[in-house]
């Protein structure tokens, strides 16, 4: 599932980030979430959501060709990954993380954030290929 956002709907509750880490890492640990929310307060009173838009920069940066595109989504093949983390450094939106074991992690398009967002601020991009 490719994501899109409506930032004006976001209330900054971070439910998306908690469910993201439970789904992907089995942990309650929002600092490892694969999307980020920044509140811009006291003014102008808005939220910015940084999320993986499947741009593919991580795949371009990978020297092992371990990040592959399928139906518009990029996923890491951990059998090929050498933990060089060049992909993490290359992410223009800074929404990749390094796991406790030292591997890179990126949005897998699981869609849990979409299902649980109380505000419909994180959405499935139905127009995108493979969604």
């Amino acid at each position: 599932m490719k994501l899109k956002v409506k930032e004006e709907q976001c209330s900054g509750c971070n439910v998306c980030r908690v469910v993201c880490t439970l789904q992907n890492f089995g942990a309650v640990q929002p600092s490892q979430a694969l999307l980020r929310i920044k509140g811009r307060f006291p003014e102008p009173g808005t939220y910015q959501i940084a999320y993986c838009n499947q741009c593919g920069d991580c795949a371009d940066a990978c020297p092992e060709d371990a990040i592959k595109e399928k139906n518009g989504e990029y996923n890491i093949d951990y059998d090929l990954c050498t933990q060089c983390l060049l992909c993490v450094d290359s992410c223009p939106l800074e929404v990749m993380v390094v796991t406790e074991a030292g591997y890179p992690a990126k949005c897998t398009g699981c869609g849990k954030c979409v299902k649980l967002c109380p505000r419909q601020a994180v959405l499935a991009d139905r127009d995108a290929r493979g969604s």
Partner: protein
Amino acid sequence: MLYGYAGKILKIDLSSGKHSIENTPQKLAEEYLGGRGFVARLLYDMIEPGIDPLGPKNVVVIATGPLSGHLLPGSGKTHFGALSPATGGYGDSNLGGHFGPNLKYAGYDCLILTGAADRLSTLVIDNDKIEIFAEDKLQGRGAIEAEKDLKDRLGEEFQILTIGPAGENRVVYACISHDFGRQAGRTGVAAVLGSKNIKAIAVRGSGNIPVFNPKAAQKKGEEMYKVCFSKPGFKTWTPYGTASITGWANEVGAFPTRNFQTSYADFHHKINGQAIIDRLLVTDKGCFGCPTPCGKYGYTKTAVGSAYVEGPEYESIATLGGSCCLEEIEEVAYANYVCDQLGLDTISAGVVVSFAMECFEKGVLSAEDAGREISFGSLEDVVYLLEKIAAREGIGAILADGVKTAAAAFEGGSEKYAIHVKGLEWSGYECRNAPGMMLSYMTADVGAHHNRSWALGYDVSQSDADVSELIEAGAGGPMEISSPDGKVDHVISMQHSRPLYDTLGICRLQTMEIGFETIHYEEVFELIAGRKITWQEMLFISERIWQLTRQFNVKHIEGFGRSWDYPPERFMEEPVASGPNKGRFIERKILDNMLDEYYEKRGWDENGVPKPETLAYFRLV
């Protein structure tokens, strides 16, 4: 392994700057759960009788609950407590936002502050790195400004608590501010932080919280959100938040107006939830994990000034709008903003300002006393008084100690206009036709605060309807006289159920406002913590905490007892001036009967002191 908890308690002696970390005791977790339970037990054990609440021997406890920071609705709550400088007894307060979850991600269930720093300081908890640094540049700065400054310096991922000038100057109803608009407002814990020279506390938490069965807890958490989404109140209540009750409070004659001279404001439709949406709203702003954000962040423009501000919440509408008679939502919001920057609890500050206005109206205070003429309905006068209070200048030096102390200083019959219980100003519900709500205020451990038992809905409807249902039903015609029968049991029950949310570290609004069922918390607790405890068993723990906070007051307030449990004379002798309850009040003998019944059911003696066998039953001795 203490599943669900971070597992550690961080204790900092501000006098020496040294800290220690200990395991969260399993016995404490089992007998007191967390949050309010930890605050009450630790304060009871650590604070010696006879100390100055604003001296270095007071202790501040900041505690999360076992459900704080997890995947479930409203899991962003944090509890704060200290010996209250407002009442001299048990003091606590609670806020949402994101601080508590991040304290747990940093590894701590609870933070204990003792001693006092030698100069104004910021405490930074960056996971396992603890640092205290001097904060001269933030001296006198507004609470919101200080938070912005620290966010810019430390980084977006830090969650920050600040106090404003009111806390620095030890105004006894100073509040702790967080997340640009969330406050732990009541009982003056911020004044205690000010007395300890702590301007701010910042936390960054990068770790995780151990969960007994992560997969099942995730599934249950997801289900809980979906249940919230399915409630009718999710769509009808959320857009307006707590302000949605403004109209209903007026329809039933419970809206404090003109310093509680009456209980109905004919301008209420100009300061309600719809007015916020139409005239202020920029964005809804939710606390951590919240599906129903009551935070309404907006922009207000008035002749006195303009500002971005979160709120006003219902309580601020009631005290600054109703009690001070600010008739436009922009004015209420601006007064709210001034309180937020100065670091003043909008509830107490609104009631203190309206008290001063009535004292002036009745001739107790002269223009010379007040520094100028002051009158109800003037935003300029409200802002003038708030600034004087925060700076402890002129009349503000007296008002900064609250209405009880100020009335003793002003004399001239002004105690009639001092609306408080135990020295804590009355919050946003007038109850001269609501004996259950009146008893709730009378017997709340911290003083006149509504959140321990909100029995008003029961007084009006004789049912357990949630707030969105009450609003939907409306007053249903002229108000009948509310009977005291059966109210004591209801109040006691609510005094266990509502504080339980503060104990678990979650928000009660999903249950109270949109009817979310408590069985879900019981189920998710077992999956997170790995042990079964029923809601009924949790209520027993909440009752234990209630007994403990009462005993705390007995221990710390000289002569504490029945005489501390009465409302102001106004509510027992003076008829409501106008509105649906015009002419009504509750005679003292009715309240006496209710207190007798309440004490008996609580296991307290006729003076309201817990009997030895009661303390033994709850394992408090």
